[in-house]
């Protein structure tokens, strides 16, 4: 049996010292190959007596298994070493930038329109639309501003050119979103609750004015709506929109031809440290105009003023966007400066909603 232990020692030593898979394979063939030393010994079993065989057989098999196991283990170990070496060679600089991906943005005007739509939708207002080139009837007459009314001059209206021979009064670029009141009521009748956000146009351009800006009109008509309801709706809107716990609104008597009574609405705010805070402080800032819809306006839209009454309001979207997000200059809204768009824009997935809040 000494021969077997010598064999075992010889191969196990050789296997553990093998440098690569090639050397290992040579050792396998030398030990376990067809003409390998262990295999030759196995052949000798045939010439043995049964008694001898009973002793030598299991010993040889054990030797064969042991060498085989050692070969496999060494092969695995060599494989791991090779992988380690490859991985070490595959080092990359992880501080290099990732492949650039463009990041898009949503314009503040669009974002704020979605914000106010979310708020008013919860109060049952749907969204109405109207053309931006309007007949002067919809923009003025139907809103109780007859042709020679001084209020027309105050609108700084853009007129469309009239072809020679066309004697109709020139169309206008709508000066406010109020004509949508008429269109919505004419189409849907009463009761009705709509908001109408959109572009409006006035011939005015300086630090704080742009010839195009955005307004949102609100209109609610029902049997018993009063100015007190209007105030509540605006309070709720401002609280939700400015994302504060409390707002204070002040109604101030004013005049709009299409509402009676009319009020301008101020919101309590503070400018301490140059930072606007809504809902606190001692300053008041005008944010919108409103009132009870004039009976003549209801009549122009075919709504029976003896049966129905309600309120309307109009608010500058760009302006409330500036107030909420601290955007300083109105004109920059329309200049499409990439730096501005990236800085003041919103992510595509920042979708305003009431469950998660309007802004991040």
């Amino acid at each position: 049996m000494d021969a077997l232990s010598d064999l075992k020692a010889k191969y196990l030593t050789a296997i553990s010292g093998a440098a690569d898979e090639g050397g290992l394979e040579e050792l396998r063939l030398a030990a376990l190959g067809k003409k390998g030393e262990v295999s030759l010994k196995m052949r000798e079993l045939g010439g043995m007596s049964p008694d001898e065989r009973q002793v030598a057989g299991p010993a040889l098999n054990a030797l064969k298994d042991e060498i085989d196991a050692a070969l496999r283990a060494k092969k695995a170990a060599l494989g791991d070493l090779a992988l380690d070496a490859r991985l070490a060679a595959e080092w990359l600089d992880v501080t290099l930038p990732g492949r650039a991906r463009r990041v898009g943005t949503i314009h503040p005007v669009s974002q704020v329109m979605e914000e106010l739509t979310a708020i008013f939708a919860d109060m049952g207002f749907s969204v109405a639309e109207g053309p931006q080139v309007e007949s002067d009837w919809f923009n003025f007459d139907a809103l109780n501003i007859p042709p020679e009314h001084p209020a027309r001059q105050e609108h700084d209206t853009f007129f469309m050119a009239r072809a020679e021979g066309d004697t109709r009064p020139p169309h206008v670029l709508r000066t406010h979103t109020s004509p949508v009141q008429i269109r919505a009521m004419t189409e849907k009748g009463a009761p009705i609750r709509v908001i109408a956000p959109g572009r409006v146009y006035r011939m005015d351009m300086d630090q704080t004015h742009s010839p195009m800006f955005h307004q949102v009109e609100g209109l609610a008509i029902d049997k018993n709506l009063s100015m007190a309801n209007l105030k509540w709706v605006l309070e709720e809107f401002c609280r939700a929109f400015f994302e504060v716990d409390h707002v204070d609104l002040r109604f101030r008597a004013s005049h709009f031809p299409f509402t009676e009574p009319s009020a301008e609405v101020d919101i309590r705010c503070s400018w301490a440290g140059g930072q606007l805070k809504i809902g606190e402080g001692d300053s008041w800032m005008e944010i919108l105009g409103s009132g009870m819809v004039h009976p003549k306006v209801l009549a122009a839209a075919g709504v029976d003023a003896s049966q129905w009454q309600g309120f309307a309001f109009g608010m500058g979207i760009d302006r409330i966007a500036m107030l909420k997000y601290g955007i300083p200059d109105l004109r920059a809204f329309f200049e499409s400066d990439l730096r501005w768009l990236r800085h003041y824009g919103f992510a595509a997935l920042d979708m305003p909603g009431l469950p998660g809040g309007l802004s991040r």
Partner: protein
Amino acid sequence: MKFTLSWLKDHLETEASLDEILYALTDLGLEVEEVVNPADTLGAFRICRVIEAVPHPNADRLRLCRVETFPGGPGSTGVEVQVVCGAPNARTGLVGVFAPVGTFVPGTGVDLKPGVIRGVESNGMLCSERELELSDDHDGIIDLPADAPLGMRFIDYKGVNDPMIYIKITPNRPDALGVRGIARDLAARGLGRLKPQVVEAVKGSFASPVTVTIDPALKEKGCPLFAGRVICGVKNGPSPAWLQARLKAIGLRPISALVDITNFFTFDQNRPLHVFDLAKVAGGVLRIHPAKGGEELLALDGKTYTFRPGMMVISDAEQPESIAGVMGGEVSGCSDTTTDVFLESAYWDPITVATTGRALKINSDARYRFERGVDPAFTLPGLELATRMVVDLCGGEASEVVMDGAVPDVSRAYKLDPARVQSLVGMDIPEAEQRATLEALGFTLAGDMATPPTWRPDVLGEADLVEEIARVASLTKLVGRPMARAQVGVPKPILTPLQMREKAARRMIAALGYNECVTYSFIDGASAALFGGGTEAVRVENPISSEMTHLRPDLLPGLLQAAARNQARGFMDMALFEVGPAFHGGEPGEQHLQATGILVGATGPRDPFGARRSVDLYDAKADAEAVLAALGAPAKMQVGRKVAGWWHPGRSGAMALGPNMMATFGELHPKVLRALDVKGPVVAFTVLIANVPLPKTKTTTRPALAMSGLQAVERDFAFVVDAKVEALTLVNAAQGADKVLIERVSVFDEFAGEKAEAQMGAGKKSLAIAVRLQPVDKTLTDEDIALVAAKIVEKVAKATGGVLRG
């Protein structure tokens, strides 16, 4: 509308403070725009005494003054201050006006600081009137009589401590264009008592040598009443100091007593008047008549106006002398040598005045008031008050009043329903208070009917009564009341499908990496013309600038201009988009919604991977497809080449469903880029949101999903085809080879250009497609696959003339 506090107090007896009055004005709807209170601006300037003035040790023209000042006011202990003064009249014993360190000096525009002048300390200033902006006098410092009360505020001493108030008047309130009307509102609010106004007629001592006539064509509407009288023997000169001070305080330049008097009544009573120099009125007649057309008048503003037919004018026997209700003529205006005048007080129709004023482009105080509506019933009382003032200030003798027409009857009454205040406004105001408010505003109440005063043309219905009551009671008292939900339960969605799609398009394009812009709806005509617009139908008659003359026919020009602006700032690569209206005509509704994106320059910044490349039409196409998919457009649509002229003719396409064009994509025409000064490459897409068909029925149920357990087989084919054969033709042909087995055909290689032609012949290219076969009921055999493959080759050959590449 400007007035001063003391002017207001001519009409309002009140103990209220300035702040209380200002608050009430704004709250009543007479919004205070500006207050100039001399006590705030000039309150620190007090009367002082120069104890001693000696020459400055280091300067010949300066004096060193020891000044006794009285910061505690009159009667307080004097405090000595050293002041260096350059005024020639600074001398020992002078009583003048002192401004301490820290005072803002209006005339110099700076805050006074302690200083050292030529080595000597100076701690304050002895002032001239110009430094206080009280006059232009700057010959020396203010030099007061020796008995002027030391320590008194100079504005009090000088009598100029009269705050000026500027309020914004809404067009419905002509009555508030007179100080008396403002006083009436404040009195109704409870801020004092409106002083009674007694109008005593001035008895005429002779018949008016001037006769007046209103043309029958105008009596009905244009000029219901024209009245006046001659005043002989007046002496015109500077008006008295009190009147000049009043006018100056509200920014009017005093001219002469006669003119100042008419201006006074314009602001005091909202009663514009006009004075003719009788010597210049030919023939002793004044006729109010429509212009024939072509007559000219040199008006008081120094400009000559030519009348159009029908414009209302006042003429003497020879020529027009005044633009009725708008502006008087220069020739018959008053001068220092005027001795006999005709004083006019008329009631002009607001619409007629507005039309004429607008046509002639004249903005005058008279037009502003007449077109808003003056009190017709005050025409004659106003004439009497003015006559009295002319006689008092200029002397002379008045004739009898001469007039044509009559005071128009504007009486009307509306039902006062005390419950309406509650139901319309939501305020609880007792009926007695409601009635008291209306009466204080001049309404006449008879039972439940309220007659508005003649000076309130704006009150035209029951709702106006409610407004007056609520406004005077103060809308600040209004308490919000919850509005009931329109329906019980979870609210329904409120956006229309189109509104949802607009939102989806916007969010999708932003998600694709574009920055949203909002550009103007109007652009310059030349840029508009590049995109099929710029026609007369979409021209703005009165554009605000030459850049904004036409409605935009397309969103592309605005975005390209934005790209050019950004490039000028050094940003060369960008992705911009806009979702908004484009205008295909000038009639209401001739607008359509576009979603347009442009890609400019490279796909991204330079990077270590070499991924940067120029944007190309396939980027734009992919984005257009992504947007269409987000809008729910069907996956299969036709891609055509029929596009508008501002696209690159070979590198742009249109996606359509039948005749319904949904999107255009591709490169912009180089000429367009050059015209708009944009450095290329630029690719773009426009999706016409409304053209994407809506699903015919709305169901939330998805169609059943069929998933085969059998393995799909993919086979590749490369065809040699003519270079202008379009890939889609080939793909569609292959797809048609077996409608059951072929699940998908996709192009995975195009080999074109010189090298390809060298291999495959001139005018040829190779297109390679992958065809995926999905077995339905049994695994495919090699024969099955060969059969389909042969059919594909045959179909492609038939459709494109292509052959399998060897």
